[in-house]
């Protein structure tokens, strides 16, 4: 866990309004697990003020680089998209717990389900799982063909199924439609994407084991400000809680209220 000015090695648009940035710096060595995230300051000035949480997509600890993939949403990600090679970015990280790889074995099947910019943290995961000998099946959902990215990259880890809402790439529909259609079975489920997608998965597989990665607006990113809490499913109205930034962003299925 460091605060570091990381140097940009590359920053390019890989899909509509979606950029991949490669960064180098010492904190790459601190990465513990796929699914951890960085808290990035898009500007050295006071505007924008807060850091932006962005998942680590992939890391090359030998080469000392990591990558992130982000969609340009507002002021912060748009500023990031304008940065060029050699510039530095103020990064806090790696933060959060990441995906645990210890409860899945070589022979088992992992179903990875990513939606939109929920896909990036799953790529590092897919690679680690594949490396471990796990059988990886991936379903990627996007709004349309323009938004699609990393289909080929995931193919190196196993089968990949794509769905788009408008049918312009892969199957028309949602990720759950693809899972139905392809009748995908799995031992562990790993998912990241819009909340409705995560809810649909929890409903569809009420007994499945696995993990989901969540998003929430953050202040500190390190567990101190209580901006990012969510209720637990065992105490949905009470004072029990999880912090997405430090208890998560990865939680076991059905642990927190979506």
């Amino acid at each position, binding site marked *: 866990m460091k605060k570091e000015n990381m140097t940009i090695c590359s920053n390019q648009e890989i899909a509509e309004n979606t950029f991949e940035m490669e960064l180098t710096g010492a904190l790459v060595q601190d990465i513990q697990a796929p699914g951890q995230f960085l808290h990035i300051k898009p500007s050295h000035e006071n505007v924008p*003020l807060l*850091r932006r949480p962005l998942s680590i997509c992939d890391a090359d600890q030998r080469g000392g680089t990591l990558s992130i993939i982000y969609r340009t949403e507002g002021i912060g990600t748009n500023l990031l998209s304008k940065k060029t090679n050699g510039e530095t970015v103020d990064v806090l990280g790696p933060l959060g717990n990441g995906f645990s790889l210890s409860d899945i074995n070589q022979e088992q099947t992992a179903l990875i389900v990513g939606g939109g910019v929920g896909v990036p943290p799953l790529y590092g995961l897919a690679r680690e799982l594949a490396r471990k000998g796990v059988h990886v099946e991936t379903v990627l959902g996007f709004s349309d063909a323009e938004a699609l990215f990393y289909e080929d990259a995931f193919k190196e880890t196993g089968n990949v199924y794509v769905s788009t809402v408008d049918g312009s790439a892969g199957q028309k529909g949602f990720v759950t439609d693809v899972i139905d259609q392809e009748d995908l079975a799995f031992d562990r489920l790993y998912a990241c994407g819009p909340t409705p997608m995560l809810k649909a998965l929890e409903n569809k597989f009420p007994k499945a084991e696995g993990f989901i990665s969540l998003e929430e607006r953050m202040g500190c990113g390190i567990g101190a400000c209580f901006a990012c809490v969510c209720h637990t499913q065992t105490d949905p109205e009470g*004072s029990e809680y999880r912090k997405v930034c430090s208890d998560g962003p990865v939680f076991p299925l059905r642990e927190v209220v979506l």
Partner: protein
Amino acid sequence: MSLQTNLPGLPMKNPVMPASGCFGFGEEFAKWYDLNTLGAIALKATTAEPRFGNETPRVAETPAGMLNAIGLQNPGLEKVVSEKLAWLKALETPLLANIAGTTMEDYEKVAAELSSTNLIGALELNISCPNVKEGGIAFGTDPDLAAELTKRVKKAASCPVYVKLSPNVTDITVLAKAVEQAGADGLSMINTLSGMKIDTRSKKPLLANGSGGLSGPAIKPIAIRMIYEVRKQTELPIIGMGGISTCDDIIEFLMAGADAVAVGTANFTNPFICPELIEELEKWTLEQGMTSIQDIRRQGVIS
């Protein structure tokens, strides 16, 4: 040269502390640096019972500022004593325990129990949280209620009591004088300004709570003006806060009349901000040839 700053109940080796609610109970930041470098620590608000707080989203970004509506989430008095203070005990740094409540009795109870632990240096009465109806905001805008509460907490507590003033008032000096007369040992100012952001895509307030408290650099000119006004009316110690993120900001607050400062929102941007600012302040004071940081206050603002 010395940054030593002695306030009632808070023998601080420098005038810089993290602000309440922006530092939890210190545990997270202890992973980043040695908390003994701090002048003091203002703890997150403690209430009698555990609170979950408001629903999310709880924070929103605004120009050079942020809105928060955490809603005083905290584990409640019992756990604060048994878990948080038990952990904090190992530090040398004096603690300023921020307390909030719905009724005067709540405040009295929390004040009595926290001070009786002898683990805290002073209490900070949060009568200015704009984000929960029960956050005491009524106490913070009505001088009579503020004075009454101060009196009762002073009686209940066995340590000095600071009152944290709300900027959401027509004349903050009226409140300052009211709590001074009621026996407050010091003032903390300012808490956040009540604000709102509407998400034009969803047509809804961005925060689940609707409105929230505005903090960060954006509010600094308001904080400086209020401290300057209050300082002209009282010699009570003032812990100044509101948008501090640089060493020059700290000096500006001290010149306006603050005796010490608290750093809030800036901890989110840079977890190392407090130790960094302390180091810079030390360097600056040396460069200025000052023997004590108190010199700034003694010189005051020439206006």
